[in-house]
């Protein structure tokens, strides 16, 4: 007794049961798995279930599908076994099988209704009876079948046996089995047989025009289509293409099926040597026949010129390989990966993913209009396109260059200006130190001995003064400010004292607004300190301020009586008895310029050149003006008789004249102040230099620490 074992609990059940009586598990599948080895049934199922035709898929008529379905019905054990095996499969495969079962089911697919009428007409199907069985149609209509597919007639068993033997004998074709077949002639022979068969079956329903229901613009092609092979012819040809390449396992390499022997072109294939392929007629004689050799490429002897080229390239290739750096090798590897990517992309889009058109005239066609993702899909760009093949040195230089460019664009912060702190205390200490030194020097005088060495300037000045006649007119040009009055008084005191002793008459003039008053005060102070009784108008005449700068000096030296005709009090200057003989500068016995301004000293010296004898020109200036006048004094010939500079020359003059004057009174105070100044500058500079060094070291330490 046959039993069927439950795949779930493993207990035996009667064969007629569909559900296990113990565990209620289904014993028989809901659908019958077609034979996996039956490629005909699979193709039939595909052709039925698929809503439309694919360009690559064969066009199978319904009657062929029905006949194959009938064939598959004759093999129920296979289906049952497959169904039983399906229960042993994992759930995923079961689902796949269920899905495929839908495809292979013989039930009329609902998707068939989606096929447009014009496409059905093209297929040769009946539009009015879409659900009729193709098998019955083929049987009723008696549609002629090819001789090798007479499965729907009474020759089923014989054909099946032949097909079984063919499956065993027909080898898998590496080349098209219909190569060399003249389809035109064969189809013409079939066309001649067709009227006879049609005449023998008058009850056959006339087939509808294949272009019925087609859009008008497509009907315009009817003439062309009528000239093309009929659907029956196409079906016949397609059937031949479909059935012929079905492979079957067996010793097919040694045997050739009889139908294949009858095919034209086989003689050509057998007669022609396998490895030699003749070129077309128009290329014969020009191109040698192609010889397919089984030799390895390395075993082939190349021409000598090609070997030379290879040998010349080899060192360069080796050099290039040596220069490749690890990054470059990595980049090349990435480039190879980039080339592989398209293959992966292609594999990621199998045939099932290609969409099928569901509307419009292309309804049911697969992959006619590529979907947008497929179109927009781009090849992954290779890294070699985005990255240059550079060495490490070039890369470092490029990075340095980029860094320089980036830093160039960055605005540099403007350092805040350091504002010096007002060291008021330090300034006050300096002032107090100077005041204390001056006070001590003035009170302790005479503390130090005056300078004994006679300078050249003092000697020349004393010589010029000593040569003055009594009651001689002397021009005193006094350009002084109050700030330098003490110094200039000390410098010129002894000299003026000597002149007063000789009874000189002074004419005072000043190119400075304040000079007239300073000149008057100078003579008063010298007279007072040295015990003279010099009075204005008796001892001197003050002409006042000479405006115009250098132009006024030039005018004054040209005609002093016209430029300065009156005194500062408004009296006639040149009408007195002491000055009535004075018309030019050369009429004065001595001209003394007393100034602390180097510019005015230079201007006076330059403007008086040629108008005053050099032997009568003396400059008594501040110590700061001496370097300016020294070139004029040391010139050859000299342009000035003498230059008295500073308190030192005044003190020397007093020492040489043996008269203690204002210079000697200030000398000790001056010495103490200068020495105090030297000490303050030295100590202050030392302290601040230490501060600066410490700050610099601190800043350097901060930079290094950072």
């Amino acid at each position, binding site marked *: 007794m046959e039993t069927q074992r439950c795949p779930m609990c493993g207990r035996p059940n009667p064969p007629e049961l569909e559900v296990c009586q113990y565990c209620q598990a289904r014993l028989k599948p809901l659908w019958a798995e077609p034979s996996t080895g039956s490629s005909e049934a699979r193709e039939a199922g595909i052709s039925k279930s698929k809503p439309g035709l694919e360009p690559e898929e064969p066009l199978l008529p319904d009657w062929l599908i029905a006949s194959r379905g009938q064939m598959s019905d004759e093999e129920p054990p296979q289906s049952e076994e497959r169904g039983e095996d399906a229960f042993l499969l994992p759930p995923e495969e079961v689902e796949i099988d269920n899905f495929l079962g839908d495809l292979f089911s013989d039930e009329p697919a609902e998707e068939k209704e989606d096929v447009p009428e014009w496409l059905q007409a093209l297929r040769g199907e009946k539009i009015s009876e879409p659900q009729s069985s193709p098998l019955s149609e083929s049987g009723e209509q008696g549609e002629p079948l090819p001789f090798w597919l007479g499965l729907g007639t009474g020759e089923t068993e014989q054909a099946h046996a032949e097909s079984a033997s063919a499956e065993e004998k027909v080898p898998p074709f590496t080349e098209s089995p219909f190569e060399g077949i003249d389809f035109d002639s064969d189809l013409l022979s079939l066309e001649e047989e067709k009227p006879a068969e049609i005449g023998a079956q008058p009850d056959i329903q006339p087939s509808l025009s294949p272009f019925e229901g087609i859009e008008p613009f497509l009907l315009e092609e009817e003439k062309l289509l009528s000239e093309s092979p009929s659907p029956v012819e196409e079906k016949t040809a397609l059937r031949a293409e479909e059935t012929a390449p079905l492979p079957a396992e067996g010793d097919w390499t040694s045997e050739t099926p009889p139908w294949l022997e009858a095919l034209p072109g086989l003689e050509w294939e057998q007669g022609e040597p396998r490895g030699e392929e003749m070129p077309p007629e128009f290329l014969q004689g020009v191109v040698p026949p192609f010889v397919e050799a089984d030799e390895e490429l390395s075993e082939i002897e190349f021409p000598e010129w090609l070997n030379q080229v290879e040998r010349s390239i080899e060192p360069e290739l080796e050099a290039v390989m040596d220069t490749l750096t690890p990054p470059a090798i990595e980049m090349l590897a990435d480039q190879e990966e980039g080339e592989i990517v398209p293959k992966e992309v292609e594999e990621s889009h199998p045939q099932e993913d290609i969409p099928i058109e569901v509307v419009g005239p292309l309804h049911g066609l697969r992959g006619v209009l590529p979907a947008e993702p497929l179109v927009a899909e781009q090849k992954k760009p290779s890294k070699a396109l985005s990255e240059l093949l550079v060495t490490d040195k070039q890369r470092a230089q490029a990075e340095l260059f980029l860094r320089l460019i980036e830093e160039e664009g960055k605005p540099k912060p403007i350092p805040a200006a350091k504002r*010096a702190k007002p060291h008021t205390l330090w300034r006050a200490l300096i002032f107090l130190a100077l005041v204390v030194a001056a006070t001590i020097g003035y009170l302790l005088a005479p503390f130090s001995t005056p300078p004994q060495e006679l300078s050249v300037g003092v000697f020349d000045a004393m010589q010029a003064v000593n040569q003055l006649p009594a009651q001689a007119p002397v021009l005193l040009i006094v350009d002084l400010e109050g700030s330098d009055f003490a110094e200039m008084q000390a410098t010129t005191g002894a000299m003026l004292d000597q002149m007063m002793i000789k009874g000189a008459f002074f004419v005072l003039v000043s190119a400075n607004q*304040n000079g007239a008053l300073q000149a008057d005060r100078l003579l008063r102070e010298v007279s007072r300190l040295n015990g003279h009784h010099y009075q204005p108008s008796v001892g001197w005449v003050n002409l006042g301020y000479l405006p115009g700068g250098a132009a006024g000096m030039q005018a004054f030296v040209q005609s002093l009586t*016209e430029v300065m005709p009156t005194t500062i009090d408004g009296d006639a200057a040149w009408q007195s008895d002491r000055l009535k003989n004075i018309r030019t500068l050369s009429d004065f016995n001595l001209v003394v310029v007393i100034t602390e301004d180097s510019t005015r000293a230079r201007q006076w010296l330059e403007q008086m050149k040629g108008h005053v004898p050099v032997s009568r020109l003396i400059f008594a200036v501040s110590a700061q003006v001496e370097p*300016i006048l*020294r070139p004029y004094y040391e010139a050859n010939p000299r342009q000035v008789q003498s230059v008295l500079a*500073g308190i030192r020359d005044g003190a020397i003059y007093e020492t040489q004249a043996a008269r203690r004057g204002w210079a000697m009174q200030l000398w000790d105070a001056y010495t103490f102040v200068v020495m105090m100044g030297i000490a303050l500058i030295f100590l*202050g500079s030392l302290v601040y*230099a230490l501060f600066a060094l410490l700050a610099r070291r601190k800043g350097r330490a901060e930079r290094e620490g950072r």
Partner: protein
Amino acid sequence: MRSFLRSPFSTLITLLTGLVVLLGYFLDIEPLRELRFRFLQWAVLLAAVSLMLGVFNLLRVHWSRLRESTSKALYSLTFLGGFVLAVLMAGLLGIQHFLTHAVVDYVIVPIEASLFVVILVTLIYALTRSLQNRFSVFSLVFLLTVLFSLLASVPLLGVEIPFLHGGESIFAIGQRVLGAAGVRGLLIGVALGSVITGIRVLFGLDRPYGE
């Protein structure tokens, strides 16, 4: 007025007067000498007038500050008071009056001397901090030069150092050689600049009178 001064007429006057004065330096011709002297006299008068204009402008500025009662009005009031006092004393009493002498002896000279001392203190202070602000070789050279100059100018408590003090000392020789050389260079530069400026004014390239 400004456009008039910028006109070719003013340029022509400047050119003619300048040429006359310049030729008067080289040509000893009586008419030329006389004409040159007149031009110089006019220049002296114009300078005096410009001085007076400057004084009036100074008075106007301080008077306006006093009327606006700004924070500096007190300084302006002091200036105006001192100006009026000085003009009255010097104009009415004369410079030989004892009040005028007192103003000079006890006001002008002490104030200017005090300002000079402030400059002295500031210079010493700046010298001491020169190395802190810029510690460089040039700062050191400048500082040492100042110190040696001061040391050579006076004897150290009455003691003269042979190589430092005196007319034949190292410092004196260096002052005569280096100092005179430097000053000669300065004087040559001043002379060349004066000549170039005069030529530019004579040819009308510079018009300081129009600005």
